[in-house]
């Protein structure tokens, strides 16, 4: 079947199988930031934005995304660059496999709630699993970014 998807701002028309998953579609278009971590809709590594809303691309049919706008990290590097350095400064991540999904969901969080509390950050990002860390470094990194944006110091 034929689908039209606006992937990272570019309108694509493609012939796909009816049961193709969105994760496999975006990866077939070279968006390798989108990772398959769990296969059980649990880990958040495959997070993409569908019309601006973060969803698990492993659980969405590419056919359902027909006519919609999909953004992956490849298309949002400028927005991500604003804060990823703060997370890196905390040495938060070790292997980095969970990073793209985590960054995508953080972008969604900051668009919806530009100045979240710790509790709001945790609640929004709880569906992004990281097996190396205890999440404290990521939380410190986001906190440092928010502090910097409010005009405070960047430690």
């Amino acid at each position, binding site marked *: *079947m034929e689908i039209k998807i606006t992937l990272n701002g570019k309108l694509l028309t493609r012939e796909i199988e*009816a*049961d193709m998953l969105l994760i496999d579609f975006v990866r077939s278009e070279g968006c390798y930031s989108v990772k398959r971590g769990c296969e*059980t*809709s*649990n880990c*958040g590594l495959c*997070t993409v934005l569908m019309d601006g*809303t*973060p*969803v*698990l691309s*492993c*659980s*969405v*049919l590419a*056919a*359902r995304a*027909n006519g919609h706008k999909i953004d992956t990290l490849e298309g949002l590097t400028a927005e991500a660059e604003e804060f990823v350095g703060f997370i890196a400064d905390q040495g938060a991540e070790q292997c980095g496999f969970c990073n793209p999904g985590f960054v995508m*969901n953080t972008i*969604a969080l900051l668009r919806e709630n530009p100045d979240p509390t710790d509790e709001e950050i945790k*609640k*929004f*990002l*709880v*569906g*992004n699993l990281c097996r190396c860390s205890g999440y404290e470094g990521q939380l410190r990194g986001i906190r440092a970014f928010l502090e910097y944006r409010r005009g405070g110091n960047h430690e």
Partner: protein
Amino acid sequence: MITFKNYVRAESLEEAYELNQKKNNVIVGGMMWLKMMDKNFGTAIDLSGLGLDTIEEDDEYFRIGAMVTLRQLELHEAFNAYTKCAAKHSVEHIVGVQFRNTATVGGSIYGRFGFSDVLTLFLALRAKVELVGAGIVDLAEFTEMSRKDRDVLVRILVPKDTESVVYLSQRNISTDFPVLAVAVAKTPEGCCYSVGARPHYAKIVTSKEPMSAEEVVNAFSFGSNTRASREYRKKVCEVLVKRAGEML
């Protein structure tokens, strides 16, 4: 893993119903649970083009479309004002924001899953389901109907005469399935006690006068699974019902 030969974004409820009469076809809600199956389907029927992704309100009911996501339920101001945030409390521990942006209320209710927080809440709210096929049916009755019917769930209707409702659940770890879920509502018919994740699907008991936590526990059956034993669930149920009663 599941496979489909065809995908159809239904253009009418009649088309969806028609397609769904074939046993090898399936309606795709959020696909969160469906994709965990190991099955080859003929046609995937998608209801996402039918405008069923809204929560509407009139004098009598909140009308919740089958394709409304759990996240919409969590954030809907009027519905959360009415349920005193019980709607939010019933879904906020389910996996994560991205999951809840995709999982649908219709999928949760239609599946009548044992672990369902959503079913537990909606039973206490004395909801009805609107089906293409059987028409409007009480949710309590729907939970007892055959899982093999080929009807299409269109909306969930929540009557607006509940005075107060509280939702509480116990989880072994945040974002996991509940070990036990309790919703208690004060209604014109009396107190409604809905208990889910026993680990069987939620059921409801209604009483003119408030029941003691012990009486509520005795009104339900409990079982054991990998998450908790029958005895533990009974204890948790007693505590949650007592707390909910105090919060009502």
